[in-house]
């Protein structure tokens, strides 16, 4: 995949051929397993899950809000570069946007597999309900994906044009197509792109914060039948934990892609900047969660107090203490304390991965505990752990995301050809 250009070094694939093979084999194995689980899901219907009428929402919903959060967080990190013009952040602009798009695709796949009638997935665009948060959300997701794609286009267009100019054959035509035929590489065209990139970003910020992820939080918070969710702080925590997971994801992707794909050394200042952001988000996330718990306990509202007791001391409390507190707060915070560690890629990757995994538990601890206690005394208690089919399909859907991301990272100029910042 050598380029015939003397001006640009463009070789976006894996540096190491064996690693590439191993990675695709790994994704392939996950896809085969996930595909089988999906076949079981479709043939056996919802009976293949461990869901019940008492706990109607489970792993798929948890993963859905997780990936919406990941997307919103990654997008907001991208706006630090293209809207707020934070120094040295342009390097990760496209990485963040592309990850945000893939995350949304994965999130929507989770929504789809969760529907009792998967064949009716388009119904929310045919019939609506103004008072339904979910009805608004599906429209917000579509608008948000449109914004993300627009942004990635304006961010990447000039490099696509440069590549279309310098490469022949299929790849050249592909880049020409992706640039939508706008092959002008002049400064004026770049300025145009950046102006529209910023405009789309400005539109996207409130959309991502208030509609896409705040809105997903509202979806839960409006449910007064579940006092654990029914709080004003809830959507805010949603947004903060989204920022936390999104920043961590972008950090991990940046290091891995720079090292494994570009073969470059990591910009340590940039890494430190991301790491410091991560510290801030961890502190805010932990503090707001503590406030939320405090309000619940102080209310003495039996349903809220008991739900928190389920979270803290119940059967599944390990997911709270080990994954939520341990993986998403304490462990990364320890790794982030030392300046030299923050500047070391191989310390920051485990720190970031730890957060990315820990936030999954945050999402499970949002969805499941509120359904354990019965809504009325005298009704049965709920109990839920995902079935093998639920785990299998979830892994398969995540593998689809990994595959899409890898294919994109191997073909698209996600690293600006000009190196770091926009010139």
């Amino acid at each position, binding site marked *: 995949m050598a380029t015939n250009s003397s001006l640009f070094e463009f070789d976006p694939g894996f540096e190491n051929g064996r690693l590439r093979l191993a990675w695709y084999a790994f994704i392939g194995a996950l896809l085969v397993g996930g595909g089988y689980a999906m076949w079981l899901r479709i043939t056996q*219907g*919802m009976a293949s899950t461990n869901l*019940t009428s008492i706990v109607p929402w489970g792993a798929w919903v948890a993963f859905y809000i997780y990936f919406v959060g990941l997307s919103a967080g990654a997008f907001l990190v991208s706006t630090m570069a293209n809207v707020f013009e934070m120094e040295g952040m342009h390097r990760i602009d496209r990485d963040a946007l592309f990850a945000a798009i893939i995350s949304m695709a994965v999130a929507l796949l989770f929504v789809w597999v969760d*529907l009792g009638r998967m064949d009716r997935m388009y119904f929310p665009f045919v019939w609506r*309900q103004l008072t339904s948060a*979910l009805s608004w959300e599906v429209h917000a997701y579509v608008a948000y994906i449109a914004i993300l794609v627009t942004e990635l286009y304006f961010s990447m267009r000039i490099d696509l044009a440069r590549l279309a100019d310098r490469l022949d054959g299929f790849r050249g035509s592909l880049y020409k197509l992706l640039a939508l035929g706008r092959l002008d590489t002049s400064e004026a065209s770049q300025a145009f792109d950046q102006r529209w990139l910023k405009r789309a970003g400005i539109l996207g910020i409130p959309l991502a914060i208030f509609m896409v992820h705040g809105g997903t939080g509202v979806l839960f918070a409006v449910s007064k*039948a579940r006092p654990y969710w029914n709080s004003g702080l809830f959507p805010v925590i949603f947004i903060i934990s989204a920022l936390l997971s999104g920043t961590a994801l972008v950090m991990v992707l940046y290091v891995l892609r720079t090292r494994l794909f570009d073969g470059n050394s990591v910009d340590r200042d940039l890494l430190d900047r991301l790491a410091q952001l991560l510290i801030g988000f961890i502190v805010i996330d932990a503090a707001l969660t503590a406030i939320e718990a405090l309000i619940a306990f102080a209310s003495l509202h039996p349903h809220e107090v008991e739900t928190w007791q389920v979270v803290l001391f119940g059967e599944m409390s390990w997911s709270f203490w080990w994954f939520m507190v341990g993986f998403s707060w304490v462990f990364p915070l320890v790794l982030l304390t030392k300046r030299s560690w923050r500047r070391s890629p191989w310390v920051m990757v485990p720190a970031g991965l730890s957060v990315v995994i820990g936030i999954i538990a945050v999402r499970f601890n949002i969805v499941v505990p509120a359904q354990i206690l019965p809504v*009325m005394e*005298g009704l049965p208690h709920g109990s839920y752990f995902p079935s093998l089919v639920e785990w299998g399909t979830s892994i398969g859907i995540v593998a689809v995301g990994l595959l899409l991301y890898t294919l994109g990272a191997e073909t698209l100029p996600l690293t600006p050809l000009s190196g770091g910042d926009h010139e």
Partner: protein
Amino acid sequence: MSSTDDGETLPGVPNVGTDDLDAMVDQEQVDPRDELADVDADTDLGIAMAEDAKRVSRGELSGEDYWSKYDEAANTEFGEAYRKTPNPSVQSGDQTIDADVAEDLSCTVGSMESVAVELAEAESATDDTSSDKTWGMVIDLQKCVGCDSCTVACKAENRTPPGVSYNVVMEEEHGEFPNVTRTNVPRPCMQCENPPCVQVCPVSATYKLDNGVVNIDYDRCIGCRYCIIACPYGARYFDFGENYDDEVEEAGEVTSPEYGVDRGKREDGKSPVGNVRKCSFCTHRLERGEEPACVETCVGDARNMGDLDDSDSEVSKMADSSRAFQLKESEGTDPNVYYLK
């Protein structure tokens, strides 16, 4: 078993001669002439028609011949009453009469169901407030004995699959031994005036009807289960597609026309499988002028059904009484199911 067995007797069943039983029937039978003497219509015609009707049921006479024979006489005898009453023989499946004969009959030809519908229509035409009805249920907790027969009747009526039970009886025990009390609270769908389930449905598949019932359109429901999450009463259930085929042969053969729609045989991938379900106040029964199955079956007469908008109705009087309360009144849902303390 015994040596005197004549081949007809079953083990353990006393051998009563069937002739004796037939004699008992004859003894109980009233004299037709005496019976018909009390009515205005022609006694001889009545007896002749009855005798021939027996022959029809024995298969000695066809339905066509029967009606050809008596049509004119019946028309002369009963006049307008005969002409206006539909003759159900044409549509009654096993006793169908030939279309040509039906054509010749001087009376209207139709099913008994059409008679019932016409009667109901005539009634509603005279009573113009019936369309403004708000169906409500009042459950007297002092009368409820906790027998769960409402739950069973509901299952039998609505043919709900395993895991779906539109009605449950919540049992609450209070106090410490020996001073304990137990309250049974039957819980159908509350048919709230402000239903949280309707509020959250992204496709408007569930909505409030004018008669107070919260409806579900199974053809529109996508199965996202948001309404189950939103319901403060746990009254909604997801249909996972399970059935009672292992317990009861051909359990899926009989279905219930929920919300007034007959969907035929239950099949995988066909609604309501994959949809959310709940109590409909037995809409299909209300439409026929019957009470919901749970109300009809209640052994203690604890359940009452009626029009909450009609201030003279029993339910609205009970709902106004000082004993009346609703579940989770603080939620602001304003259920149309009331309880009496």
